[in-house]
């Protein structure tokens, strides 16, 4: 996948990409909680599989017992046992 101009500029200037280029920021707490910032919405949501729209890529989570703990326009907090995290470009 081609790196965007803003991503490239942010990398050169040592600015966090999620701030400058609005790319998703994913934080995993242990094995049971995942936090996604700058998401563009949910594409699919189920207890075993969740697809999160990240803009230029889709974040595909597989696991068990997924549940949305909280969600706003830019932040998403999911809980459930995480098996696999995959980026689909």
């Amino acid at each position: 996948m081609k790196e965007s101009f803003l991503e490239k500029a942010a990398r050169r200037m040592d600015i966090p990409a999620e701030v400058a280029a609005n790319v998703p920021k994913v934080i995993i707490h242990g094995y049971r909680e995942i936090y996604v910032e700058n998401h563009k919405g949910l594409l699919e949501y189920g207890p075993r599989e969740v697809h999160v729209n990240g803009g230029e890529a889709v974040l595909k989570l597989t696991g068990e017992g997924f549940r949305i703990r909280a969600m706003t326009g830019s932040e998403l907090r999911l809980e459930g046992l995480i098996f696999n995290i995959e980026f689909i470009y």
Partner: protein
Amino acid sequence: MQKAVNLLRGFVRIGVECPYPERFINLCAVHHIAFWGADRIGELRLEATIPARCLPQAEAFAVKLGGSLTAIKQRGALFFLERFKRRYVLITGLLLCIAALFISNRYIWEFTVEGNKTVPSEAILEALREIGIKTGSPASAVDIVDIRNKVLMKLDGLSWITVNVSGSRAAVVVRERVAKPLIYPRNTPVNIVAAKPGLITRIDALAGAAQVFPGDTVRKGQLLVSGLIDSSQVGVRLVNARADVTARTWTELKAITPVGAVGKRYTGRETKRYALVFAGSRVNLYRNTGQPYAMCDKISKTQSLRVGGGFSFPVALVTETFTEYEPVAYQLDESVAESLLRRELSQTLRGGLAAGGEILTETVTFHPETGFVSATLTAECLERIDVPRKVEIGDVLARRGDS
């Protein structure tokens, strides 16, 4: 904290059925509808919790997506209160209660007195009652300056008083008057005389003419330092005599106590009576007002109905407990009687000792008699015996006559 806020504001557990529940989630997120605990139940169904105020908007989104929304469970203060919407009597009672609290808070229903040791609390409250500050008086009637002016005039034992009104309770704080020592003005001619008989051990005459010397024995009231000084120029000169006179003094105290005494033996029978006091008026909750037993102790306990630290209702519950006893004659043990007498005499001796004085020797002798035990305390003390006494005209005339 967030849970408490949510409970206060109210939240709804909703079930949404639509072709794409993810779209419903996205719509909520974009339109700032906070939701939590979202569970996918089936292919077309989703359950989540949203704030109560967002329910109409969420419902509109569900309809827009070709689905439907149902409220499964509603929780929070708002929904709890809504249950009482049609319970008019309850609401009226609540409003009346609030009104009663509000009105009642403007009146004083309870008094507490603090800071008094010798002046009884009843006397202070009676003085306040006489000037119109009593149970049921409006809190606005409390004028501290007026109270101070009037109550201090009525009660000589007080030097200061204030009334702090907190809610419907009034705390009366007093300071008692300290007896002023006998001090004559510097320009008043004063003699120094002996407060009690003794043997002078030291005399420091700061002003005046010493009339006695160490080793002299003096009687009570004897002149120790004279305020009249002979002068070769002006005859007799009058001064304010000042002196520290220390003497050895001997004290003899006697006490007596009967050996036989009557005590109480409780039978175990007890009767309780209750009464209510409404704003000072007592309502007995019993019929028979007589004493339940021929011989009994009566203990009264008054409990005011209070809310927190500041508010008290004008209602108090009085509990009177009558405990029956039988009189039992018993013989006081001699050692116990002696111990009682020794303590009593020792306290009296120390109470009569001048400030800074010390007890050199203290002997107690007991004399058992028929039915009594008497004791004699003999003590030798070292203490100041000087007391000022105003020079009378007779003293001056007597001195002139002598000279």
